[in-house]
Protein backbone atom coordinates (compact mmCIF):
# COMPACT_ATOMS: atom_id res chain seq x y z
CA UNK A 1 0.00 0.00 0.00
CA UNK A 2 3.08 2.15 0.21
CA UNK A 3 2.79 3.67 -3.22
CA UNK A 4 -0.92 4.41 -3.10
CA UNK A 5 -0.45 8.06 -4.04
CA UNK A 6 1.54 6.98 -7.07
CA UNK A 7 -1.28 4.66 -8.09
CA UNK A 8 -3.76 7.46 -7.78
CA UNK A 9 -1.58 9.71 -9.89
CA UNK A 10 -1.38 7.03 -12.58
CA UNK A 11 -5.13 6.54 -12.48
CA UNK A 12 -5.67 10.27 -12.72
CA UNK A 13 -3.30 10.49 -15.68
CA UNK A 14 -5.30 7.93 -17.67
CA UNK A 15 -8.60 9.21 -16.42
CA UNK A 16 -7.95 12.78 -17.60
CA UNK A 17 -5.43 12.58 -20.40
CA UNK A 18 -6.28 9.31 -22.10
CA UNK A 19 -10.00 9.73 -22.44
CA UNK A 20 -10.74 7.67 -19.35
CA UNK A 21 -13.41 10.09 -18.15
CA UNK A 22 -15.27 9.84 -21.45
CA UNK A 23 -15.43 6.08 -21.10
CA UNK A 24 -16.59 6.36 -17.52
CA UNK A 25 -19.32 8.82 -18.50
CA UNK A 26 -20.51 6.55 -21.32
CA UNK A 27 -20.49 3.66 -18.89
CA UNK A 28 -22.42 5.64 -16.33
CA UNK A 29 -24.92 6.73 -18.94
CA UNK A 30 -25.43 3.17 -20.21
CA UNK A 31 -25.80 1.82 -16.70
CA UNK A 32 -28.46 4.38 -15.83
CA UNK A 33 -30.30 4.04 -19.13
CA UNK A 34 -30.42 0.26 -18.88
CA UNK A 35 -31.58 0.34 -15.26
CA UNK A 36 -34.14 3.15 -15.56
CA UNK A 37 -35.64 2.23 -18.93
CA UNK A 38 -35.50 -1.41 -17.90
CA UNK A 39 -37.46 -0.65 -14.77
CA UNK A 40 -39.97 1.44 -16.73
CA UNK A 41 -40.57 -1.48 -19.09
CA UNK A 42 -40.64 -3.77 -16.07
CA UNK A 43 -43.30 -1.69 -14.35
CA UNK A 44 -45.54 -1.76 -17.41
CA UNK A 45 -45.13 -5.51 -17.91
CA UNK A 46 -45.35 -6.18 -14.19
CA UNK A 47 -48.55 -4.16 -13.80
CA UNK A 48 -50.20 -5.98 -16.67
CA UNK A 49 -49.18 -9.38 -15.27
CA UNK A 50 -50.28 -8.46 -11.76
CA UNK A 51 -53.63 -7.18 -13.04
CA UNK A 52 -54.15 -10.48 -14.86
CA UNK A 53 -53.16 -12.48 -11.80
CA UNK A 54 -55.67 -10.77 -9.54
CA UNK A 55 -58.49 -10.93 -12.11
CA UNK A 56 -61.50 -13.05 -11.19
CA UNK A 57 -60.94 -16.43 -12.82
CA UNK A 58 -64.36 -17.77 -13.75
CA UNK A 59 -64.00 -17.03 -17.45
CA UNK A 60 -61.67 -18.88 -19.76
CA UNK A 61 -59.59 -16.00 -21.11
CA UNK A 62 -58.22 -14.83 -17.75
CA UNK A 63 -57.30 -18.41 -16.93
CA UNK A 64 -55.32 -18.82 -20.15
CA UNK A 65 -53.62 -15.44 -19.69
CA UNK A 66 -52.81 -16.41 -16.12
CA UNK A 67 -51.07 -19.55 -17.36
CA UNK A 68 -49.02 -17.52 -19.82
CA UNK A 69 -48.03 -15.08 -17.08
CA UNK A 70 -47.05 -17.86 -14.69
CA UNK A 71 -44.83 -19.34 -17.40
CA UNK A 72 -43.26 -15.94 -18.07
CA UNK A 73 -42.53 -15.24 -14.43
CA UNK A 74 -41.18 -18.75 -13.92
CA UNK A 75 -38.90 -18.41 -16.91
CA UNK A 76 -37.41 -15.06 -15.96
CA UNK A 77 -37.07 -15.75 -12.27
CA UNK A 78 -35.72 -19.21 -12.89
CA UNK A 79 -32.65 -18.19 -14.90
CA UNK A 80 -29.82 -15.81 -14.03
CA UNK A 81 -29.86 -12.53 -15.88
CA UNK A 82 -26.46 -13.27 -17.43
CA UNK A 83 -27.92 -16.36 -19.03
CA UNK A 84 -30.89 -14.38 -20.30
CA UNK A 85 -28.58 -11.76 -21.79
CA UNK A 86 -26.40 -14.36 -23.48
CA UNK A 87 -29.36 -16.30 -24.83
CA UNK A 88 -31.04 -13.13 -26.11
CA UNK A 89 -27.90 -11.77 -27.72
CA UNK A 90 -26.26 -14.90 -29.07
CA UNK A 91 -29.24 -17.19 -29.69
CA UNK A 92 -32.57 -15.47 -30.15
CA UNK A 93 -31.58 -12.33 -32.04
CA UNK A 94 -29.32 -14.16 -34.56
CA UNK A 95 -32.06 -16.73 -35.08
CA UNK A 96 -34.51 -13.95 -35.84
CA UNK A 97 -31.89 -12.27 -38.01
CA UNK A 98 -32.07 -9.02 -36.08
CA UNK A 99 -29.01 -6.89 -35.59
CA UNK A 100 -29.26 -4.67 -32.55
CA UNK A 101 -26.76 -2.65 -30.53
CA UNK A 102 -25.87 -4.44 -27.28
CA UNK A 103 -27.24 -1.64 -25.09
CA UNK A 104 -30.70 -1.99 -26.62
CA UNK A 105 -30.59 -5.74 -26.08
CA UNK A 106 -29.67 -5.13 -22.47
CA UNK A 107 -32.54 -2.67 -22.00
CA UNK A 108 -34.97 -5.25 -23.38
CA UNK A 109 -33.66 -8.12 -21.31
CA UNK A 110 -33.53 -6.06 -18.13
CA UNK A 111 -37.05 -4.82 -18.82
CA UNK A 112 -38.38 -8.34 -19.34
CA UNK A 113 -36.49 -9.61 -16.33
CA UNK A 114 -37.62 -6.90 -13.95
CA UNK A 115 -41.17 -7.30 -15.30
CA UNK A 116 -41.22 -10.73 -13.69
CA UNK A 117 -40.10 -9.35 -10.33
CA UNK A 118 -42.20 -6.21 -10.45
CA UNK A 119 -45.29 -8.32 -11.19
CA UNK A 120 -44.91 -10.03 -7.82
CA UNK A 121 -44.32 -6.72 -6.06
CA UNK A 122 -47.27 -5.15 -7.84
CA UNK A 123 -49.54 -8.10 -7.08
CA UNK A 124 -48.80 -7.66 -3.40
CA UNK A 125 -49.48 -3.95 -3.77
CA UNK A 126 -52.81 -4.49 -5.49
CA UNK A 127 -53.89 -7.05 -2.90
CA UNK A 128 -52.99 -4.59 -0.15
CA UNK A 129 -55.56 -2.09 -1.47
CA UNK A 130 -58.91 -2.36 0.29
CA UNK A 131 -61.27 -4.48 -1.88
CA UNK A 132 -63.94 -1.87 -1.13
CA UNK A 133 -62.14 0.48 -3.54
CA UNK A 134 -62.70 -1.91 -6.42
CA UNK A 135 -66.31 -2.45 -5.34
CA UNK A 136 -66.98 1.26 -5.17
CA UNK A 137 -65.56 1.73 -8.65
CA UNK A 138 -67.64 -1.09 -10.07
CA UNK A 139 -70.73 0.15 -8.24
CA UNK A 140 -70.62 3.52 -10.02
CA UNK A 141 -70.49 1.67 -13.32
CA UNK A 142 -66.79 1.77 -14.17
CA UNK A 143 -65.41 -1.33 -15.81
CA UNK A 144 -62.91 -3.62 -14.08
CA UNK A 145 -59.99 -2.31 -16.11
CA UNK A 146 -60.86 1.37 -15.68
CA UNK A 147 -61.26 0.94 -11.91
CA UNK A 148 -58.00 -0.96 -11.79
CA UNK A 149 -56.17 1.73 -13.71
CA UNK A 150 -57.64 4.82 -12.08
CA UNK A 151 -58.26 3.70 -8.52
CA UNK A 152 -56.49 0.52 -7.47
CA UNK A 153 -53.13 0.73 -9.25
CA UNK A 154 -52.34 4.31 -8.15
CA UNK A 155 -52.93 3.30 -4.54
CA UNK A 156 -50.97 0.10 -5.01
CA UNK A 157 -48.02 2.01 -6.47
CA UNK A 158 -47.97 4.25 -3.44
CA UNK A 159 -47.83 1.23 -1.17
CA UNK A 160 -45.02 -0.47 -3.04
CA UNK A 161 -42.85 2.54 -3.83
CA UNK A 162 -40.12 1.63 -1.34
CA UNK A 163 -39.96 -1.87 -2.79
CA UNK A 164 -39.84 -0.50 -6.32
CA UNK A 165 -36.93 1.71 -5.24
CA UNK A 166 -35.21 -1.44 -4.06
CA UNK A 167 -35.83 -3.02 -7.44
CA UNK A 168 -34.24 -0.03 -9.18
CA UNK A 169 -31.21 -0.28 -6.90
CA UNK A 170 -30.92 -3.99 -7.62
CA UNK A 171 -31.15 -3.28 -11.35
CA UNK A 172 -28.44 -0.61 -11.21
CA UNK A 173 -26.12 -3.09 -9.57
CA UNK A 174 -27.08 -5.95 -11.87
CA UNK A 175 -26.14 -3.89 -14.91
CA UNK A 176 -22.55 -4.72 -14.04
CA UNK A 177 -22.97 -7.90 -16.10
CA UNK A 178 -23.88 -6.26 -19.40
CA UNK A 179 -20.27 -6.38 -20.58
CA UNK A 180 -20.95 -10.10 -21.20
CA UNK A 181 -22.62 -9.05 -24.45
CA UNK A 182 -20.28 -6.17 -25.15
CA UNK A 183 -22.25 -3.23 -23.83
CA UNK A 184 -20.00 -0.50 -22.43
CA UNK A 185 -20.81 -0.01 -18.76
CA UNK A 186 -18.79 1.15 -15.78
CA UNK A 187 -16.92 -2.14 -15.56
CA UNK A 188 -15.73 -1.78 -19.16
CA UNK A 189 -14.65 1.80 -18.55
CA UNK A 190 -12.67 1.10 -15.40
CA UNK A 191 -11.02 -2.05 -16.62
CA UNK A 192 -9.96 -0.05 -19.68
CA UNK A 193 -8.20 2.35 -17.31
CA UNK A 194 -6.82 -0.56 -15.35
CA UNK A 195 -5.36 -2.42 -18.33
CA UNK A 196 -3.78 0.76 -19.62
CA UNK A 197 -1.48 1.21 -16.64
CA UNK A 198 -1.42 -2.37 -15.29
CA UNK A 199 -2.96 -1.16 -12.05
CA UNK A 200 -6.45 -2.21 -10.97
CA UNK A 201 -6.64 -1.20 -7.35
CA UNK A 202 -7.65 2.45 -7.75
CA UNK A 203 -9.94 2.02 -10.78
CA UNK A 204 -12.00 -0.69 -9.12
CA UNK A 205 -12.14 1.26 -5.89
CA UNK A 206 -13.44 4.25 -7.86
CA UNK A 207 -16.00 1.98 -9.53
CA UNK A 208 -17.27 0.79 -6.17
CA UNK A 209 -17.54 4.39 -5.01
CA UNK A 210 -19.57 5.41 -8.05
CA UNK A 211 -22.01 2.55 -7.47
CA UNK A 212 -22.44 3.49 -3.83
CA UNK A 213 -23.06 7.14 -4.64
CA UNK A 214 -25.56 6.22 -7.38
CA UNK A 215 -27.49 3.96 -5.03
CA UNK A 216 -27.54 6.62 -2.34
CA UNK A 217 -28.91 9.19 -4.76
CA UNK A 218 -31.64 6.81 -5.93
CA UNK A 219 -32.60 6.03 -2.34
CA UNK A 220 -32.91 9.76 -1.68
CA UNK A 221 -35.14 10.27 -4.72
CA UNK A 222 -37.39 7.42 -3.67
CA UNK A 223 -37.79 8.95 -0.25
CA UNK A 224 -38.73 12.33 -1.72
CA UNK A 225 -41.26 10.74 -4.06
CA UNK A 226 -42.77 8.74 -1.23
CA UNK A 227 -43.27 11.89 0.78
CA UNK A 228 -45.02 13.72 -2.05
CA UNK A 229 -47.26 10.74 -2.79
CA UNK A 230 -48.27 10.44 0.81
CA UNK A 231 -50.13 13.74 0.78
CA UNK A 232 -53.47 11.96 0.42
CA UNK A 233 -52.85 10.10 3.70
CA UNK A 234 -52.36 13.02 6.01
CA UNK A 235 -54.11 16.13 7.09
CA UNK A 236 -52.30 18.35 4.64
Amino acid at each position, binding site marked *: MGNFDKKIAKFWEIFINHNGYAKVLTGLQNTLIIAVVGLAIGIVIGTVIAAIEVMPKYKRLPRILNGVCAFYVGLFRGTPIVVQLLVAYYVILPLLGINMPPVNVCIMVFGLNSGAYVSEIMRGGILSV*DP*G*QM*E*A*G*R*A*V*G*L*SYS*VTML*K*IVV*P*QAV*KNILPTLGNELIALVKETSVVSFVGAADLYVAFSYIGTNNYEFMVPYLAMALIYIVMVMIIAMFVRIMERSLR*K*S*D*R*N*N
Partner: protein
Amino acid sequence: MIEITDLRKSFGNLEVLKGITTTISEGEKVVVVGPSGSGKSTFLRCLNCMEDPTSGSIIFDGVDITDMKVDINIHRRRMGMVFQQFNLFNNKTVLGNIMLAPLHVKLTDFRRKKLKNAFIRISNLFARDKKPLYEINANRQQIKEEVRENALRLLKRIGLEDKADAYPSTLSGGQKQRIAIIRALAMNPKVILFDEPTSALDPEMVGEVLDLIRQLAEEGMTMVIVTHEMGFAREVATRVLFMDDGQILEENAPAEFFSNPQNPRAKEFLSKVL
Protein backbone atom coordinates in the same frame (compact mmCIF):
# COMPACT_ATOMS: atom_id res chain seq x y z
CA MET B 1 -88.88 -1.01 -11.88
CA ILE B 2 -86.88 -3.87 -10.36
CA GLU B 3 -88.53 -7.26 -10.57
CA ILE B 4 -86.79 -9.96 -8.62
CA THR B 5 -87.85 -13.52 -9.30
CA ASP B 6 -86.69 -16.55 -7.30
CA LEU B 7 -83.28 -15.04 -6.58
CA ARG B 8 -80.83 -17.57 -5.16
CA LYS B 9 -77.23 -17.17 -4.14
CA SER B 10 -74.82 -19.74 -2.79
CA PHE B 11 -71.27 -19.33 -1.59
CA GLY B 12 -69.85 -22.79 -2.08
CA ASN B 13 -72.20 -25.12 -0.25
CA LEU B 14 -73.75 -22.39 1.83
CA GLU B 15 -77.02 -21.16 0.41
CA VAL B 16 -77.41 -17.57 1.54
CA LEU B 17 -80.46 -16.54 -0.47
CA LYS B 18 -83.16 -19.17 -0.83
CA GLY B 19 -85.47 -17.86 -3.47
CA ILE B 20 -86.47 -14.25 -3.13
CA THR B 21 -89.31 -12.82 -5.17
CA THR B 22 -90.38 -9.23 -4.90
CA THR B 23 -90.92 -6.10 -6.95
CA ILE B 24 -89.59 -2.66 -6.25
CA SER B 25 -91.52 0.01 -8.06
CA GLU B 26 -90.61 3.58 -8.83
CA GLY B 27 -90.61 5.96 -5.87
CA GLU B 28 -90.73 3.19 -3.27
CA LYS B 29 -88.48 3.22 -0.22
CA VAL B 30 -87.96 -0.40 0.67
CA VAL B 31 -86.26 -1.06 3.98
CA VAL B 32 -84.80 -4.51 4.54
CA VAL B 33 -84.43 -5.57 8.16
CA GLY B 34 -83.53 -8.82 9.83
CA PRO B 35 -80.99 -10.44 12.13
CA SER B 36 -77.29 -10.65 11.22
CA GLY B 37 -76.49 -13.36 8.71
CA SER B 38 -80.00 -13.35 7.32
CA GLY B 39 -78.77 -12.46 3.83
CA LYS B 40 -79.93 -8.83 3.74
CA SER B 41 -76.65 -7.46 2.50
CA THR B 42 -76.19 -10.28 0.03
CA PHE B 43 -79.67 -9.58 -1.31
CA LEU B 44 -78.81 -5.91 -1.76
CA ARG B 45 -75.48 -6.71 -3.40
CA CYS B 46 -77.21 -9.08 -5.80
CA LEU B 47 -79.49 -6.28 -6.96
CA ASN B 48 -76.67 -4.58 -8.86
CA CYS B 49 -74.78 -7.83 -9.43
CA MET B 50 -71.91 -6.99 -7.09
CA GLU B 51 -72.50 -10.62 -6.23
CA ASP B 52 -73.56 -12.65 -9.23
CA PRO B 53 -76.75 -14.49 -8.31
CA THR B 54 -76.58 -18.26 -8.59
CA SER B 55 -80.00 -18.41 -10.18
CA GLY B 56 -83.14 -16.37 -10.61
CA SER B 57 -83.64 -13.15 -12.48
CA ILE B 58 -83.53 -9.44 -11.78
CA ILE B 59 -85.36 -7.36 -14.34
CA PHE B 60 -84.23 -3.74 -14.10
CA ASP B 61 -85.97 -1.38 -16.53
CA GLY B 62 -86.98 -4.29 -18.71
CA VAL B 63 -83.53 -5.90 -18.91
CA ASP B 64 -82.50 -9.04 -17.09
CA ILE B 65 -79.24 -7.89 -15.54
CA THR B 66 -78.30 -11.34 -14.27
CA ASP B 67 -77.68 -12.30 -17.88
CA MET B 68 -73.89 -12.50 -18.32
CA LYS B 69 -74.16 -11.04 -21.82
CA VAL B 70 -75.63 -7.78 -20.58
CA ASP B 71 -73.10 -4.99 -20.04
CA ILE B 72 -73.65 -4.64 -16.34
CA ASN B 73 -71.67 -1.38 -16.13
CA ILE B 74 -74.31 0.51 -18.09
CA HIS B 75 -77.02 -0.63 -15.68
CA ARG B 76 -74.96 -0.01 -12.58
CA ARG B 77 -74.74 3.64 -13.62
CA ARG B 78 -78.48 3.85 -13.05
CA MET B 79 -78.24 2.13 -9.66
CA GLY B 80 -76.29 4.02 -7.06
CA MET B 81 -74.78 2.14 -4.16
CA VAL B 82 -73.72 3.35 -0.73
CA PHE B 83 -71.52 1.12 1.39
CA GLN B 84 -71.16 0.56 5.09
CA GLN B 85 -67.45 1.40 4.90
CA PHE B 86 -68.02 4.47 2.66
CA ASN B 87 -65.37 3.31 0.17
CA LEU B 88 -64.43 6.74 -1.07
CA PHE B 89 -61.55 6.59 -3.53
CA ASN B 90 -58.56 7.32 -1.29
CA ASN B 91 -56.35 8.59 -4.10
CA LYS B 92 -58.83 11.22 -5.25
CA THR B 93 -59.94 14.46 -3.69
CA VAL B 94 -63.56 14.84 -2.66
CA LEU B 95 -64.35 16.58 -5.93
CA GLY B 96 -62.39 13.92 -7.82
CA ASN B 97 -64.47 11.22 -6.12
CA ILE B 98 -67.71 12.78 -7.26
CA MET B 99 -66.54 13.66 -10.76
CA LEU B 100 -64.71 10.47 -11.66
CA ALA B 101 -67.55 8.30 -12.90
CA PRO B 102 -69.72 10.94 -14.65
CA LEU B 103 -66.66 12.43 -16.32
CA HIS B 104 -65.41 9.05 -17.45
CA VAL B 105 -68.78 8.09 -18.88
CA LYS B 106 -69.26 11.38 -20.69
CA LEU B 107 -65.75 11.54 -22.07
CA THR B 108 -65.90 7.95 -23.27
CA ASP B 109 -69.18 8.71 -24.98
CA PHE B 110 -67.66 11.86 -26.50
CA ARG B 111 -64.65 9.96 -27.85
CA ARG B 112 -66.82 7.18 -29.23
CA LYS B 113 -69.06 9.63 -31.06
CA LYS B 114 -66.07 11.44 -32.51
CA LEU B 115 -64.57 8.18 -33.74
CA LYS B 116 -67.85 7.10 -35.28
CA ASN B 117 -68.21 10.48 -36.96
CA ALA B 118 -64.77 10.11 -38.48
CA PHE B 119 -65.79 6.74 -39.96
CA ILE B 120 -69.09 8.12 -41.20
CA ARG B 121 -67.31 11.02 -42.90
CA ILE B 122 -65.02 8.61 -44.71
CA SER B 123 -67.83 6.31 -45.77
CA ASN B 124 -69.89 9.33 -46.84
CA LEU B 125 -67.21 10.14 -49.37
CA PHE B 126 -68.10 6.98 -51.27
CA ALA B 127 -71.75 6.42 -50.43
CA ARG B 128 -74.60 7.89 -52.40
CA ASP B 129 -76.89 8.18 -49.35
CA LYS B 130 -75.04 10.37 -46.92
CA LYS B 131 -75.40 9.20 -43.34
CA PRO B 132 -75.99 11.89 -40.71
CA LEU B 133 -73.26 12.57 -38.19
CA TYR B 134 -73.73 12.13 -34.46
CA GLU B 135 -74.43 15.38 -32.75
CA ILE B 136 -71.66 16.63 -30.51
CA ASN B 137 -72.75 19.70 -28.65
CA ALA B 138 -69.91 20.20 -26.21
CA ASN B 139 -66.16 19.95 -26.37
CA ARG B 140 -63.95 18.22 -23.86
CA GLN B 141 -63.49 21.34 -21.78
CA GLN B 142 -67.20 22.09 -21.62
CA ILE B 143 -68.00 18.54 -20.57
CA LYS B 144 -65.46 18.79 -17.79
CA GLU B 145 -66.83 22.12 -16.64
CA GLU B 146 -70.38 20.83 -16.66
CA VAL B 147 -69.52 17.74 -14.60
CA ARG B 148 -67.54 19.90 -12.21
CA GLU B 149 -70.37 22.34 -11.74
CA ASN B 150 -72.78 19.53 -11.04
CA ALA B 151 -70.38 18.05 -8.48
CA LEU B 152 -69.96 21.41 -6.76
CA ARG B 153 -73.71 21.92 -6.71
CA LEU B 154 -74.12 18.56 -4.98
CA LEU B 155 -71.34 19.36 -2.53
CA LYS B 156 -72.97 22.69 -1.71
CA ARG B 157 -76.18 20.87 -1.04
CA ILE B 158 -74.57 18.95 1.82
CA GLY B 159 -72.62 22.03 2.91
CA LEU B 160 -69.18 20.60 2.25
CA GLU B 161 -68.08 22.79 -0.66
CA ASP B 162 -65.03 23.91 1.34
CA LYS B 163 -63.86 20.28 1.42
CA ALA B 164 -63.79 19.97 -2.38
CA ASP B 165 -60.02 19.67 -2.54
CA ALA B 166 -59.52 17.67 0.64
CA TYR B 167 -58.63 13.99 0.59
CA PRO B 168 -61.02 11.46 2.15
CA SER B 169 -58.54 10.56 4.90
CA THR B 170 -59.02 14.03 6.40
CA LEU B 171 -62.80 13.75 6.74
CA SER B 172 -65.02 12.46 9.52
CA GLY B 173 -67.13 9.34 9.00
CA GLY B 174 -70.33 11.32 8.61
CA GLN B 175 -68.76 13.58 6.00
CA LYS B 176 -67.37 10.59 4.13
CA GLN B 177 -70.71 8.86 4.02
CA ARG B 178 -72.56 11.97 2.86
CA ILE B 179 -70.00 12.41 0.11
CA ALA B 180 -70.40 8.75 -0.81
CA ILE B 181 -74.12 9.37 -1.13
CA ILE B 182 -73.74 12.35 -3.45
CA ARG B 183 -71.11 10.46 -5.40
CA ALA B 184 -73.86 7.95 -6.15
CA LEU B 185 -76.25 10.81 -6.84
CA ALA B 186 -73.89 12.42 -9.37
CA MET B 187 -74.73 9.65 -11.85
CA ASN B 188 -78.46 10.53 -11.71
CA PRO B 189 -79.42 7.03 -10.65
CA LYS B 190 -82.98 5.72 -10.78
CA VAL B 191 -82.51 3.85 -7.54
CA ILE B 192 -79.98 3.97 -4.71
CA LEU B 193 -79.03 0.90 -2.72
CA PHE B 194 -77.92 1.59 0.85
CA ASP B 195 -75.93 -1.17 2.54
CA GLU B 196 -76.09 -0.35 6.26
CA PRO B 197 -75.12 3.28 5.65
CA THR B 198 -74.84 4.21 9.32
CA SER B 199 -73.41 1.05 10.87
CA ALA B 200 -69.78 2.19 10.75
CA LEU B 201 -70.49 5.70 12.05
CA ASP B 202 -69.98 7.21 15.46
CA PRO B 203 -73.36 7.77 17.11
CA GLU B 204 -73.24 11.56 16.84
CA MET B 205 -72.76 11.33 13.06
CA VAL B 206 -75.64 9.01 12.34
CA GLY B 207 -78.11 11.88 12.35
CA GLU B 208 -76.53 13.91 9.56
CA VAL B 209 -76.38 10.91 7.25
CA LEU B 210 -79.95 9.87 7.98
CA ASP B 211 -81.09 13.46 7.38
CA LEU B 212 -79.58 13.40 3.91
CA ILE B 213 -81.19 10.05 3.11
CA ARG B 214 -84.50 11.36 4.41
CA GLN B 215 -84.21 14.41 2.14
CA LEU B 216 -83.59 12.20 -0.87
CA ALA B 217 -86.56 10.08 0.10
CA GLU B 218 -88.78 13.14 0.25
CA GLU B 219 -87.61 14.13 -3.22
CA GLY B 220 -88.98 10.84 -4.48
CA MET B 221 -85.79 8.87 -5.04
CA THR B 222 -86.37 5.13 -5.17
CA MET B 223 -84.33 3.41 -2.47
CA VAL B 224 -83.55 0.04 -1.05
CA ILE B 225 -82.08 0.37 2.43
CA VAL B 226 -80.56 -2.30 4.60
CA THR B 227 -80.37 -0.90 8.10
CA HIS B 228 -80.50 -1.57 11.80
CA GLU B 229 -81.98 1.85 12.55
CA MET B 230 -85.54 0.77 13.28
CA GLY B 231 -86.81 4.26 14.07
CA PHE B 232 -85.51 5.50 10.76
CA ALA B 233 -86.98 2.50 8.96
CA ARG B 234 -90.39 3.15 10.39
CA GLU B 235 -90.23 6.80 9.40
CA VAL B 236 -88.85 6.59 5.86
CA ALA B 237 -90.01 3.23 4.54
CA THR B 238 -93.00 2.75 2.32
CA ARG B 239 -92.52 -0.99 2.71
CA VAL B 240 -90.53 -3.17 5.09
CA LEU B 241 -89.07 -6.52 4.14
CA PHE B 242 -88.22 -8.79 7.04
CA MET B 243 -85.60 -11.33 6.07
CA ASP B 244 -84.30 -14.31 7.93
CA ASP B 245 -82.41 -17.39 6.81
CA GLY B 246 -82.23 -16.21 3.19
CA GLN B 247 -85.95 -15.70 2.74
CA ILE B 248 -88.42 -12.86 2.96
CA LEU B 249 -90.64 -13.84 5.88
CA GLU B 250 -92.76 -10.75 6.06
CA GLU B 251 -93.48 -7.89 3.72
CA ASN B 252 -95.62 -5.09 5.07
CA ALA B 253 -96.22 -1.38 5.48
CA PRO B 254 -93.97 -0.02 8.25
CA ALA B 255 -96.77 0.97 10.61
CA GLU B 256 -98.27 -2.52 10.35
CA PHE B 257 -94.95 -4.29 10.58
CA PHE B 258 -93.65 -2.49 13.64
CA SER B 259 -96.86 -2.44 15.63
CA ASN B 260 -98.30 -5.76 14.64
CA PRO B 261 -95.83 -8.18 13.07
CA GLN B 262 -97.38 -11.37 11.74
CA ASN B 263 -94.43 -13.70 11.46
CA PRO B 264 -93.27 -15.23 14.78
CA ARG B 265 -89.61 -14.71 13.95
CA ALA B 266 -90.28 -11.08 13.07
CA LYS B 267 -92.01 -10.71 16.42
CA GLU B 268 -89.03 -12.18 18.21
CA PHE B 269 -86.61 -9.96 16.25
CA LEU B 270 -88.56 -6.81 16.97
CA SER B 271 -88.90 -7.59 20.65
CA LYS B 272 -85.09 -7.75 20.79
CA VAL B 273 -84.29 -4.59 18.89
CA LEU B 274 -87.08 -2.20 19.82
